[in-house]
């Protein structure tokens, strides 16, 4: 039997596998962790409608009936064949595949690399992912019981050439606004600050969300990058920044600081790019054949791309690309016959 390897069991891989199955093909969904869902599975709810993330994952899972799912398995080797690829997994299984859908996603920027923000050093500095875990009910001693002041630092490791990532991570602005609103709703008495350099609110309902944050929640939006973070004697977090709109330096003391860690390429991209002789883009993500009309095709025959493995994507974009990649595979195989 000829398979279609779908590498990566996040929402892109799940959706692509479900679509391939629906098109009558035989996808094998390969995920190195023990569960499907990728980054979204560690999120509590999604902007802009605060949809529970686990609902999306369950919906996607329900459509995977009959799909060969290989959990806890990594691609060990990927050998080109005359027609397709031989995919060898770390669990010893070998799949002859007519095509491959790479849905390897992204990785979050390691926030500790922005040393001045003190992640991993100061007791009350966390990341966007940590906060989602806390929203989802995971206890986190770094989040105080009743914070009086909370700050969000946008663009941590995004649009930052010195940090090695010049690209915008696209979803952090709206995620920060979502998380700020959620914190305000949980702690109505708390002052919430968002330190941003630009607000990029391009999606449907995003602007409404932003207005709600300002008008209904009284969240303070401060245009200026945080220069340094320190810890006070009572264990709070002192943040220094410049308010570039008023032209003044500011210093605030917070009970919790949340770093909006950006989206960077998955380190595995290089391994796959070598295995299939497919060059990576300048930003380390996979390079699409064409960034306008052919975003889900690669330059290599039989290799397709879905979701955030080509760059930062929202959930709806990721799902749309996964469907597109599945359709591309179907057409590719049809053309081969």
């Amino acid at each position: 039997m000829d398979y279609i390897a779908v590498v990566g069991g996040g929402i892109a891989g799940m959706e692509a596998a479900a679509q391939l199955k629906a098109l009558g093909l035989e996808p094998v969904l390969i995920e190195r962790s023990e569960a499907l869902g990728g980054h979204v599975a560690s999120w509590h709810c999604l902007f802009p409608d605060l949809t529970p993330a686990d609902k999306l994952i369950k919906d996607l899972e329900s459509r995977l009936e009959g799909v060969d799912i290989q959990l806890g398995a990594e691609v060990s080797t990927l050998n080109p064949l005359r027609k397709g690829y031989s995919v060898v997994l770390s669990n010893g299984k070998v799949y002859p595949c007519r095509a491959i859908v790479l849905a390897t996603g992204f990785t979050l920027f390691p926030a500790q690399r922005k040393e001045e923000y003190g992640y991993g050093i100061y007791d009350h500095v966390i990341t966007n992912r940590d906060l989602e875990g806390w929203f989802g009910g995971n206890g986190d001693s770094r989040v105080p019981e009743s914070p009086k002041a909370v700050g969000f630092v946008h663009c941590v490791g995004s649009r930052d050439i010195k940090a090695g990532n010049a690209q915008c991570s696209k979803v952090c602005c709206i995620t920060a606004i979502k998380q700020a609103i959620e914190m305000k709703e949980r702690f109505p008495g708390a002052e919430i600050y968002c330190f941003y350099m630009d607000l990029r609110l391009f999606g449907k309902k995003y602007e409404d969300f932003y207005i709600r944050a300002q008008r209904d929640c009284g969240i303070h939006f401060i245009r200026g990058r945080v220069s340094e973070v320190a810890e006070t004697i009572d264990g709070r977090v002192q943040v220094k920044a410049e308010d570039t709109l008023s032209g003044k330096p500011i210093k605030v003391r917070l009970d919790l600081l949340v770093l909006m860690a950006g989206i960077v390429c998955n380190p595995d991209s290089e391994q796959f790019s070598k295995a299939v002789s497919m060059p990576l883009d300048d930003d380390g993500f996979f390079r699409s054949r064409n960034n306008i009309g052919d975003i889900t095709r690669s330059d290599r025959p039989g290799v397709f791309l879905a979701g955030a493995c080509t760059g930062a994507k929202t959930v709806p974009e990721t799902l749309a690309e996964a469907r597109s990649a599945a359709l591309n595979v179907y057409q590719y195989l049809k053309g081969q016959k």
Partner: protein
Amino acid sequence: MIYQGKQKIWSDYQKEIPDNHWFYVRSCIRQSFFPGSEKYFLKICRDMLGRDIYETEHHTTCGGIAYHCDTIPQETAMTIVARQFALMTEAGYENLVTSCITSFGNYTEILETWREFPELEARIRENLWKACKREFKTPKYVAHASDLVYKLRNEIAARAKYRLVNKETGEPLRIVEHIGCHYSKMFPHKGVGGAEYPCVLSGMVDAWGGEVIDYPERRHCCGFGFRQYLVKANRGYSVSNTHKKFESMEPYHPDAIITNCPGCPFFLDRWQYVIAEMEGKTYGKDGHGIPALTYEELAGLVLGVDPWDLGLQIHQVGPEPLLDKIGIAYDPAHKYDGLDEKALKKPGLPNVLKCC
């Protein structure tokens, strides 16, 4: 505070510091400010720990102060530095150790600039040849003298007569460390521990038994800031920066401050007098200030050097409360004795700041 987080960063920023054979260049101003410091750097490294440190009377300023004050162009500073390198080359050394933080920053910046723009290095070589017929090799290693003392900190600890411990309570002394801005803020990988959490001084404090205080304005400028002080009209900025630091460290009740820059200990020391006069406020116990020491002075103290030989009487803030806490013996009668026990004039005492 998560100490392991800092340790992780420290492990990322460890620079190679050769153990021996250094060409030493002094600071322009430290011999006036803290005259015992450079002398005891040489004494500790050479006489006590047996290292080969060479210096020549022919070396000059590195031009760093003039460069940072915009009074000379960088090419001039580069040519001055090239001459220092020529002296090092002529003396047969490859490792350069600087007393001054700004010099360290200046040398590092110049070498990095030459690495990026080799044509500029070629032009400076030509300038130097035209000016004084000298040639040079660039140093294999450039270190600040505090890097070297950091490397030798455990040897110093092994020979220490005193530890940074309160002899009455047995508790470690609480030490504020202040790193000169030009040490690693420009090139984090050139400093031990990087730019945000340098461990060059905290490593010494740990090794000698003290406890380092991390306070909110730890990274803030000491107040020197070159043009903040050197332009007379700006001196209000200078003292207000120092004031901000002291207000921030005050709740931690530090016993002393350790520094590695020529300017920092001067301003952290002298401005305590000015703040006391202006605000009526002092930051030590019972009207005293917080002693601001150089790392050589602190090393000298733990090694049992007489405080007056180290030049601690030159400080505005009296070191006596610190010496008493550690249990260091000193003779108040000899505080203002000069060389050959010649009596120096006793300074007038300030109105507010208690100076023993």
